[in-house]
């Protein structure tokens, strides 16, 4: 068994209120192997997005990551990184795709600028070199490179999500965290995007932490899956195992709530 790329150990995250706290994530541990697609499933509010944010340490007060938690990327604890280390780490090692593509891109900057700022900051690239790299990335997601001087509002929702994925790949990260990347898009576009991500993954070798509430989608797309309920990771296993032999009550309930395609009776 190869060493895991991402190792989340005893992750506990609280939101500190004025009188009491809310435990959003409760002692969660899981591993993601290099190049693997690991899915985190659960209903809204179960803590999966909180975990996603924690990996790049994007939380703001009053969120608090408890001291016993560890998030190891290639053995290094992300939670121990200093300001500079964190700035380096972000996007280079871990990139992130958010749910609403409509909003992930800065509305007042051209697409090429949104690539350039990342390429300049991390690699010190010149504008010309950045333009080449941008064109390369856009081609990977089937967006015409000559549109790089356009603004985000000139693209459709699906195209914007693809552009975000392209920006994610610009620095060749080891892990891409996707938080409900296709929920806001229609089913056909959803499928195209996921297929594209799969191809790129095979080609470039990054791992994916895939977060969604859609268990059915997850089973088709992921290698391994974790089920979350109320901040706890209640079950973990291969997609196959989760599908055929769910162990936890909640997992079974999730499956039971799916209407059968063949018109069977809802239990």
């Amino acid at each position, binding site marked *: 068994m190869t060493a895991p790329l991402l190792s989340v150990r005893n992750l506990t995250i609280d939101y500190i209120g004025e009188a009491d706290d809310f435990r959003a994530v409760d002692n969660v541990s899981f591993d993601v192997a290099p190049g693997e697609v690991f899915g985190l499933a659960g209903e809204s509010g179960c803590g999966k997005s909180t975990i996603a944010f924690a990996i790049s*340490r994007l939380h*703001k*007060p009053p*969120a608090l*990551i408890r001291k016993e938690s560890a998030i190891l990327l290639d053995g290094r604890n992300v*939670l121990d990184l200093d300001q500079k280390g964190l700035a380096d780490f972000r996007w280079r090692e871990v990139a992130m795709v958010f749910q609403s593509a409509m909003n992930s891109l800065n509305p007042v900057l051209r697409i090429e600028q949104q690539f350039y700022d990342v390429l300049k900051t991390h690699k010190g690239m010149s504008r010309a070199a950045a333009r080449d790299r941008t064109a390369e990335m856009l081609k990977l997601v089937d967006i015409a490179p000559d549109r790089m001087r356009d603004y985000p509002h000139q693209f459709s929702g699906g195209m914007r999500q693809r552009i975000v994925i392209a920006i994610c790949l610009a620095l060749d990260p080891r892990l891409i965290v996707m938080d409900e990347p296709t929920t806001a898009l229609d089913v056909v576009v959803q499928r195209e995007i996921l297929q594209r991500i799969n191809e790129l993954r095979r080609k470039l070798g990054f791992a994916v932490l895939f977060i969604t509430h859609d268990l059915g989608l997850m089973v088709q797309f992921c290698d391994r899956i974790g089920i979350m309920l109320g901040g706890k990771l209640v079950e973990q296993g291969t997609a196959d195992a989760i599908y055929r032999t769910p162990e936890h009550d909640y997992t079974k309930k999730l499956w039971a709530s799916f209407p059968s395609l063949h018109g069977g009776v809802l239990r």
Partner: protein
Amino acid sequence: MKKSSFPLIRNRKAMVGALIVAFILAVAIAAPLLTSYDPSARVGRPHQAPSWEHWLGTTRIGQDVFARLLYGARTSLAVGFGAGLLITAVGTALGIIAGYRGGKVDEVISFFTNMVLVVPNLPLLLVLAAFIGQASPWVIALILGCTSWAWGARVTRAETLSVKQKDYVKSAEMMGEPRWRIMTFEIFPNLISIVGINFIGSVIFAIITQATLEFLGLGDPKVVSWGTMLYGAQKASALSVGAWWDILTPCFALAFLGIGLSLLNFAVDEIANPRLRTGNRLGRWSALIRSGEGRL
């Protein structure tokens, strides 16, 4: 220390603001108890400096400044709150009607509102007041009410548009409730915080504008108000002759009242829109970070 659950009390700014306004109100009401002078009568020598006899000195005509301050508070407050009420009432009504009815009604009201918004307020008031002549405070309150409702209307309309979509409004519509009932009993109660902010803002505006109009000579100089005090002092060139008490008294009174109302307004805004709060609510969080219990 047990914290009160009433949000207005918890907020320090609101407390200070409310205290200031309450204090001024109390002083205005208690005016006859606090001074024996008639504010309009000549009771001393012209431009006497503050002394035991006249705590804040006298005006050019020998009137007691302190008495004028107290009685003037009554007028300024009355016009301020009166005009503020009128402005808010008109603005809220038009805003709700435009927002809820939509369509042609909305277009007409919005067009009219934008037009009023874009004509500069003070110049318009000046022209109106110039034609009216010496405007008594009530006339001033009336014309303020008729010209300054536009901003409130716009804001109220925007809020109404979002409240309109809520379920309880839709269900009331389906049950066949008449439109005026829906607007009064379903929509309006949910706009309370916006209306509150609107009201306090309008009062501040009314007080400032009334004082400005009177300062420029458009008020009735026989009336005792903080604005006419400014007018009298300016006419008497109080600053040039060194009678600072004559002009600075109404200045500080107006500033004090303005600050009190604004603090109240700011606090109401923060309660309505918690994202805008200032000040640290992260005491516990910071303590945990410091003790090493966790990190970000």
